[in-house]
């Protein structure tokens, strides 16, 4: 059964304007895959910016802001999905972008390792309930002092704090009686 955190909004591919890119994470090594994240993120951002026409300074500025935000968010979502994707998972990694009247929503989907679920959900609960300003400073101090370069959550905090995004998550099993768990991360950006 699916478990959601935050105000998760289901989207249906096939409705409205959307773009979806899928990957099979185990097909090539992570290192080689990494560059692809940036290319895919920029592609999504470039594609979207064509929906915001106009050459006057205000429109150009808005287009630049939206492109920059989508490029950052999509890249972070893909980096996370590739980094934490469960090696034995049959799940493909995918990213979808939906254009709505006053928002752009991005959804990434990837498998999660069984022992990674609980700490991830604990961190999500902190993101959704604690003072973001305080949490950002705390995580920045913690990750800057950490030699191991372990997960910092800074990507999510930047989306929420700097880009004023709304985020939600859904954990679900891809098939009945399956032990595998996939997480869908939703990021909604105001435009």
């Amino acid at each position, binding site marked *: 059964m699916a478990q959601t955190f935050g105000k998760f909004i289901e989207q249906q591919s096939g409705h409205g304007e959307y773009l979806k890119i899928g990957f099979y994470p185990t097909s090539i090594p992570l290192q080689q895959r990494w560059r692809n994240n*940036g290319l895919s993120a920029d592609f999504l951002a470039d594609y979207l910016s064509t929906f915001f026409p106009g050459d006057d300074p205000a429109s150009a500025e808005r287009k630049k802001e939206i492109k*920059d935000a989508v490029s950052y968010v999509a890249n972070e979502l893909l*980096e996370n999905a590739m980094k934490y994707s469960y090696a034995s998972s049959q799940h493909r990694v995918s990213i979808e972008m939906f254009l709505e009247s006053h928002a752009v929503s991005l959804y990434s989907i990837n498998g999660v390792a069984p022992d990674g679920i609980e700490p991830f959900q604990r961190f999500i609960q902190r993101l959704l309930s604690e003072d973001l300003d305080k949490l*950002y400073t705390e995580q920045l*101090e913690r990750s*800057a002092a950490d030699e191991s370069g372990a997960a910092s959550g800074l990507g999510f905090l930047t989306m929420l704090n700097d880009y004023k995004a709304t985020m939600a998550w859904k954990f679900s099993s891809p098939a009945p009686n399956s032990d595998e768990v996939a997480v869908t991360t939703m990021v909604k950006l105001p435009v």
Partner: protein
Amino acid sequence: MDVIHDDYQVQFDEASSTVRCQGSFRLHGDEYKPILDLLINAADMKPATLTLDVRELQFLNSSGINTLSKFILQVRKHQVSQVVVRGSTRFPWQEKSLINLQRLLPELKLAIE
């Protein structure tokens, strides 16, 4: 000891105590090590003013934010240098995110042009 790559470059100008970052920082974990080493080395020289010029840095991922944070922490440890971060409005992320470095060092001077 400059870091020169097709997609990004980091140079330390000792005469002006300025570290210049250019290109796109979308690296993965350990790939940041040479950049971090350069930044730590610059901080360890303890100049009165240390400038971090990112005006030509188009993109910074969260691992990159972490790398810059480690640099700021090193400067804070020495309590000697005034840090000036030079940014540009050309890349919207800079106005949004560079200010976060002041969370670690409130006296850091941010100059966005």
